[in-house]
């Protein structure tokens, strides 16, 4: 297939074959003997927009369903709020423009087959499947539509997709956070379903106060069910503060961290960790560099203004160390800073490996495995042990089981 390069010049590249594209990842997996190490990815994606013809019929409201499905012919209108940006770098990240060329078996879910290909290549045993376009669902101007789209997606995912994965894919389902009542209904309806380990709130939203009283029953419902709450970040060039950015790199670099910093701050200073001490909270896809910054910033202000956070019984950073963080995109630039970050977040027990595949800035397991300052126990925990404990996922072979037992992460079975 030809890709367009500079000045309209065409460059021929092979059609996409994920297994072939990731052949070097597979070499890494074999060289590092990943098969003996349970590797759990807590943040991977599929392109659910390519499945809207299957998803939209699950919408509950007759009128909304007709509105969205009628627009599916000849791409007349979009269902999801868009996100301006250049994730594919003008085709430099070739799996974006070539995605449609990849061949799959038409009798099986295409998304599952593509997932199996990259997981097998990388040596990943389980992956948490998140949507892509729906990460912008929080920007939908109609909260009723947001809720119905989440409902349809969650039904489709849990009834059609996850059961086809042989248990290798799980999910934290999308919540319609603009409507607390509907959010609770989603938790009550889907929380017990197989392969559901928790729920995910997209943090790109025009207005969201995670500390609002309306959400307390939601958090309680998740805590009672032993489910996790994940906040998944993203970029938003439409956010007023980012309109001064003239390059996507700026919006992307700042946006992911910005939204997590914002919501994590509200979560911590309002003492949500005191209110729901058994609710695992995971901050996803903002990298790690923001965490030490926020810990220091909040601790500093807390020492001066504790009367504004009277629910807290310890420093903000202590609550942040009780929470979980996904590893990707890991800013491996200054190894000493990275080591300091790992120490500050108690990475050995609180960090969860994430690939973010197939998105452009994905991380291989080697980003963790090859860190020179990590012990074997830390590597095993971060790559899979911590997630195995959190999501109650079982080892896939005896060697993995032995390693989980060795490092105190075997809780299933």
């Amino acid at each position, binding site marked *: 297939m030809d890709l367009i*390069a500079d000045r309209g010049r065409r460059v021929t590249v092979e059609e996409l074959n994920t297994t072939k594209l990731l052949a*070097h*990842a597979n*070499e890494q997996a074999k060289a590092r003997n990943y098969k003996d190490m349970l590797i759990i990815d807590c943040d991977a994606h599929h392109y659910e927009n390519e499945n809207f013809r299957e998803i939209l019929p699950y919408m509950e409201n007759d009128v909304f369903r007709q509105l969205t499905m009628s627009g599916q012919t000849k791409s007349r209108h979009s269902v999801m709020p868009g996100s301006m940006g250049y994730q594919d*770098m003008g085709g*430099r*990240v070739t*799996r974006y423009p070539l995605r449609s060329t990849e061949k799959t078996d038409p009798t099986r879910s295409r998304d599952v087959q593509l997932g199996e290909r990259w997981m097998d290549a990388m040596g990943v045993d389980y992956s948490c499947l998140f949507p892509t376009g729906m990460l912008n669902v929080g920007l939908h101007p109609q909260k009723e539509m947001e809720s119905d789209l989440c409902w349809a997606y969650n039904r489709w995912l849990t009834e059609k997709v996850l059961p086809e994965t042989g248990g290798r894919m799980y999910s934290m389902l999308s919540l319609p956070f603009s409507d607390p009542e509907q959010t609770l209904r989603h938790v009550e309806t889907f929380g017990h379903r197989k392969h559901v380990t928790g729920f995910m709130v997209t943090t790109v939203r025009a207005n969201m106060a995670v500390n609002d009283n309306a959400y307390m029953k939601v958090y309680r419902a998740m805590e009672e069910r032993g489910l996790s709450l994940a906040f998944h970040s993203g970029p938003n060039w439409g956010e007023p503060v980012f309109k001064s950015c003239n390059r996507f790199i700026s919006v992307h670099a700042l946006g992911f961290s910005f939204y997590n910093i914002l919501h994590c701050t509200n979560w911590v200073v309002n003492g949500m960790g005191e209110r729901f001490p058994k609710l695992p909270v995971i901050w996803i896809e903002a990298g790690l560099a923001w965490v030490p910054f926020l810990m220091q910033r909040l601790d500093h202000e807390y020492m001066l203004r504790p009367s504004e956070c009277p629910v807290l019984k310890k420093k903000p950073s202590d609550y942040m160390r009780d929470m979980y963080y996904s590893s990707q995109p890991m800013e491996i630039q200054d190894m000493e800073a990275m080591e300091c970050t790992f120490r500050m977040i108690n990475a050995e027990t609180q960090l969860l490996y994430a690939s973010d595949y197939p998105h*452009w800035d994905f991380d291989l397991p080697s*980003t963790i495995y090859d860190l020179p300052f990590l012990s074997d126990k830390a590597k095993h925990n971060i790559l899979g042990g911590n997630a195995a404990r959190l999501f109650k996922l079982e080892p896939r072979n005896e060697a993995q089981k032995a390693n989980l037992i060795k490092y105190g992460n075997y809780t299933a079975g």
Partner: protein
Amino acid sequence: MAEQFIGKASEWKDGSRQIVRVGSEEIGIFKHEGQYFAYSNYCLHQGGPACEGLTIAKVEERLREDKTSMGLFFSENQMDFVCPWHGYEYDMRTGECIADRRLKLKKFNVLQKGDELYVVA
């Protein structure tokens, strides 16, 4: 040092490339503006197939005397190749990573013997 035949020079078109394995090395060979360039196919970032992606002219920003920007342009004289995994971009003529020229892909020689081309590893 092993020499591996990579084809006849008369059959290599400008802008074409080959990926070959020589012993433990995987090498990407490009023909660009009549010259051959050969580099390790393992990206210095996360090990992606550095030579298998898009070739594209370097993007430049041109500034006026008063330091105001004229905007972005494709270079007239620098061609890059890009690792398809994450977009690490390398200078075709040097193998240097354009974001940090201290990082360089391992370079290999291409020998021409008559019409026959060999990469040396």
